[in-house]
């Protein structure tokens, strides 16, 4: 009995001691990173890996002692892809949770709905959404990690031009991501000498794209097809493409940068190409490529924790998270204005999306070089350049 009491006392003391030393080491409240993501809903395919990535790396950074001797805490809310919810949650993060920085916004709609709020509240905001409008024109407090859809189109058009293909058909969904890509494709066509001969749309949850593809098939002279979209619809498009026995070159935008696209298409994606962040082919990068190490590290950590293949979308969250931490470190505090300035001065930050070099005129900081052309070969993404 006595022994038992002794042991429990010792245990209690140990716990207390641990608690005290912990508190002493931290001394300060945690650094709070706020996030609102489309974890459920039609864009959950993007938002889910983003949320998982944030949770994973918060734990990792804290295990290594946190930042500025402070723990990191992430608050994530699910918007289901709804801009109104995004605005409400952003306000909650700023006013109620009093976060220091926002790493958030799966879709462009969510992001743009929050921009006025963020500019007013003066809080640094790193968006994980694709469209160029987010950082063009530059907004004082708004940054973003993924390549813009404009860059994806440029990358594809550059290759089409080099291959002498000029007659292109577009197929894409009616969602925001797809429409934004489509708009860029139309906008840039002329300057690359591309002639868009067909433009077909499918609904956000359509289950059969053969009618649209049949029309493209029957359009004379199509040399290449360009797909704008993400998620299940792109896999179905690939399957239907093969079903119809179409043989033109097929390029997707970067929305299909996930092993799921290939698995979902069940072999039909073979030979299709897309521009993607180097992360997708980290193992194949040359050993002196600075992105190789960081890409592999992310891939291994994510796979080990969640036992599912990585996607480039989770990578956007990874970059957003570490860009924020890097800026906080350099700012030496969580003072919002200082963190913002530090973010803007980010130089040679090696992320999974590319090497970030921000400036007062560029709040994304990526160039076309960090975009790789990738081809589906043998059920895997293979570097095609």
């Amino acid at each position, binding site marked *: 009995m006595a022994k038992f009491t002794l042991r429990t006392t010792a245990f209690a003391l140990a716990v207390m001691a641990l608690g005290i030393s912990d508190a002493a080491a931290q001394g300060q409240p945690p650094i709070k990173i706020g996030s609102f993501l489309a974890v*459920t809903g039609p864009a959950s395919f993007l938002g889910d890996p983003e949320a998982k990535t944030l949770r994973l790396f918060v734990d990792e950074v804290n295990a290594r002692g946190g930042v500025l001797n402070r723990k990191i805490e992430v608050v994530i809310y699910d918007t289901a892809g709804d801009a109104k919810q995004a605005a409400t949650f952003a306000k909650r993060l700023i*006013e109620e949770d009093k976060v220091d920085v926002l790493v958030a916004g799966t879709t462009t709609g969510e992001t743009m709905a929050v921009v006025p709020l963020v500019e007013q509240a003066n809080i640094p905001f790193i968006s994980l959404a694709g*469209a160029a409008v987010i950082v063009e024109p530059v907004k004082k407090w708004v940054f973003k990690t993924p390549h813009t859809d404009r860059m994806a189109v440029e990358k594809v058009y550059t290759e089409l031009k080099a291959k002498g293909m000029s007659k292109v058909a577009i197929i894409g969904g009616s969602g925001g991501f797809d429409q934004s890509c489509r708009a860029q494709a139309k906008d840039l066509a002329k300057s690359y000498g591309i002639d868009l001969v067909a433009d077909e749309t499918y609904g956000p949850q359509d289950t059969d794209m053969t009618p649209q593809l049949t029309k493209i098939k029957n359009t004379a002279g199509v040399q290449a097809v360009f797909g704008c979209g993400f998620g299940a619809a792109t896999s179905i498009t690939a399957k239907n493409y093969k079903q119809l026995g179409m043989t033109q070159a097929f390029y997707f935008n970067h929305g299909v940068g996930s092993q799921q696209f290939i698995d979902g298409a069940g072999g039909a994606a073979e030979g299709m190409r897309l521009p993607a962040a180097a992360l997708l082919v980290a193992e194949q990068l040359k050993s002196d490529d600075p992105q190789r190490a960081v890409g592999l590290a992310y891939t291994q950590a994510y796979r080990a924790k969640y036992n599912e293949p990585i996607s480039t979308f989770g990578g956007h969250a990874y970059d957003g998270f570490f860009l924020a931490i890097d800026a906080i470190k350099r700012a030496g505090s969580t003072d919002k204005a200082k963190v913002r300035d530090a973010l803007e001065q980010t130089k040679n930050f090696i992320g999974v999306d590319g090497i970030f070099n921000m400036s007062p005129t560029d709040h994304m900081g990526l160039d076309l070089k960090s975009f790789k052309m990738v081809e589906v070969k043998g059920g895997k993404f293979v570097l095609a350049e």
Partner: protein
Amino acid sequence: MRLRGLMQARTGGLLALALVIAVLPLALPNNFYYQVAVLVGLNAIVCVGLNLLIGYAGQISLGHAGFFGLGAYASAVLTAKFGWPAPLALVAGATGVALLAFVLARPILRLKGHYLAMATLGMGIIISIVINQEIPLTGGPDGMPVPGFALFGLRLTGDRTWYWIVGGLLLLSVWLSLNLIESPVGRAFRALHGSEVAAETVGIDTARFKVLAFVVSAVFAAVAGSAFAHFAGFVTPVEAQFLRSIEFVTMVVFGGMASVFGAVVGAAVLTALPQILTAFHDYEMIALGVVLIGTMILMPRGMLPSLAALTRRWMR
């Protein structure tokens, strides 16, 4: 005598609501709570209108988010792209929606029960598809920014300002619908819900009243939509989506059909609920489903009427 008592109870309800709106800010610690309160108010306006249609006229609509979206986009497009003054855009939106609802009402309301549900659903979906696809005008699925609301050179900004505006609008809409319900027209409404044939045999022009309920509820939704657009400063087609229509109907039934204040309670609970359920993280949807099912089983008539009946039983 009985009617008089009823009238007083209703005026009392209006006063109580006004009191709640006036006192609530004392319990709102920061702008986030104000924002939620504004969203509650806007949803409540839609639900008060929709309740006239569902609760009193006995006609279901699965398309009211379409009217809300039209109101929101009328304000957004007319002010942002055509430089109209905001009040004018609001009135134009509401008038346009009223006309549309009036034109659609006759053929749509000829339908019964679930066929009516289908027709309103189709109408709502067509509206949302058009908003989604007319990118040059509406910005498409990524939405568009909306300028602030300026009245006589005075710019209405900030959650607190909007709280009072929306509070006022809500009181106005409740007052209007209470008046409608108590008018001869309104009594016809209630007769309709009981039995259309019976109402017709005693000489009530049921079609006319159904049309009126439809148009009034559509206008309420459009005005709420316009206010939302200016308040949020950004609109996306999600506002017009079919799932949003279902949300509105759910709020009305959840709060209590054929009860104006029930509609307000339903809107308040279901708008605030997601903010509370965030505590459940991944289990958020499960919790929401359980709350919906549980409440409807335990309080089949909706929250307010069931709770009122319960209190009455206790008081006795």
